């Protein structure tokens, strides 16, 4: 890279390498949030609506897992996917798939824990109605998830924020390979280590702008949806 390359210049000229990095960051983090939602939302709702021995313990663990250190998750996924690890035959270490797996593990507890809280609050409100309707547990879970869909947008955004912002897990399992597994956060870490602080800050601004834009988009969609739903 020439010396005079500024982050602003990269953005304004639509630098293909920068766009590829932004694209990969979005693909990895969004895929992770989608997968984590598929696991976390039903699980959280299930915990909210069922009573079983040890439930309190599950809730506490779920809440605690929201604080999983990315670097530890990265290391565990690394050791599992390594050729010398139990899942080595998959051959996906240092690929975007490995990064999605690591981020899914990070994000799923956040989505599950927040979903549980949301659904439980809603359940308190609708308990009598749903009980009177005398429907089975699956319909009950589905109904409440559907009713909570607008609040759950915020839950998904919390998960996305976590995924998009973390560097510890993706840099270990992705390897920060140029043009292949380099994301916004790992690029920032790299530029910092090269002493190119202005470029690192510039990339950081881009990352923040993207996260704000996605939140604005989700907010608009939520408002529009709420209006349509009356």
């Amino acid at each position: 890279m020439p010396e005079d390359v500024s982050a602003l210049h990269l953005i304004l000229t639509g630098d293909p390498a920068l766009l590829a990095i932004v694209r990969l960051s979005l693909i990895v983090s969004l895929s992770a949030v989608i997968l984590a939602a598929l696991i976390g939302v039903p699980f959280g709702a299930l915990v909210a609506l069922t009573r079983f021995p040890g439930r309190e313990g599950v809730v506490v663990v779920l809440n605690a897992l929201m604080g999983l250190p990315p670097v530890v998750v990265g290391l565990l996924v690394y050791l599992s996917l390594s050729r010398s690890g139990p899942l080595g035959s998959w051959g996906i270490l240092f690929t975007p798939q490995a990064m999605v797996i690591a981020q899914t593990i990070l994000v799923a507890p956040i989505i599950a824990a927040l979903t549980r809280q949301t659904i439980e609050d809603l359940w308190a409100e609708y308990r009598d109605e749903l009980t009177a309707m005398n429907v089975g547990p699956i319909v009950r879970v589905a109904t409440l998830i559907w009713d909570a869909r607008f609040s759950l947008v915020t839950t998904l955004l919390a998960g996305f924020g976590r995924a998009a912002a973390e560097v510890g897990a993706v840099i270990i399992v992705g390897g920060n390979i140029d043009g292949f597994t380099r994301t916004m956060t790992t690029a920032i870490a790299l530029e910092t280590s090269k002493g190119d602080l202005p470029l690192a800050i510039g990339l950081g601004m881009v990352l923040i702008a993207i996260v704000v834009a996605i939140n604005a988009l989700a907010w608009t969609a939520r408002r529009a949806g709420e209006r349509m739903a009356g």
Partner: protein
Amino acid sequence: MHTRRTLIAIAAIGTLLLAAHPSLAQDKSIIVSSTTSTQDSGLFGHILPLFKSKTGIDVKVLSQGTGQALDTGRRGDADVVFVHAKSAEEKFLTEGFGVKRFPVMYNDFVLIGPKSDPAGIKGSKDVAAALKTIKDKGAPFISRGDKSGTHIAEINLWKIAGIDIAADKGPWYKEIGQGMGAALNTASASNAYVLTDRGTWLSFKNRGDLIVAVEGDKRLFNQYGVMLVNPAKHPTVKKELGQQFIDWLISPEGHKAIADYKINGEQLFYPNAQDPGA
């Protein structure tokens, strides 16, 4: 069921997103675990496109410290290791993890320090004497502390200076356990001395008041070697493609590519595959 249909749609989109990613389709690629110095200095950015246009092989570089790079090879997660700590490389071979070591090139280390030069070693050509002075005066010194090639070289230099750094270090000696760039950033922020490879120094931008204090001592010589990870230990190693990369690095064409890489007109790496002792 609205919810289920939505979820299925989302899952489908997610799968498409992943499948559509172009880099997942590429197959003719190898993973090379290497050191931060080769990557951060920009050498790979210069030579890899030349290699790719000739062979079509995509080289994915993991830029790690030498210790970690060798460990990645040991685990079978890289096809080729390209590092700079001969003793550690020979150990890697003895353990059976590497096939054969090929010397590729050398560059040199420089001892960086603050312009104010509190140890008074500026311009010296004797790195051992300079380190001894730093220790005697308790001038601040930043160590990588990460088992990288540079860290190993630093420990050897202390030994040459007659200092057992593990026992003799004081508050003036700080091990940061991070890469070269981070060590330079730390030295720049705290006006400390630090040992670095010349390539990373030349491409480093956040210098602050740092200057080259000691250079040109033969003991600052830094040899790079390349090895194919042993397919007998890890059958998944792409041995043909990996060997093709090694053969190219030590060929006249690869040597020219390495020698041609310059920052501000200064050559960073000197190819020497033909030197039997390297």
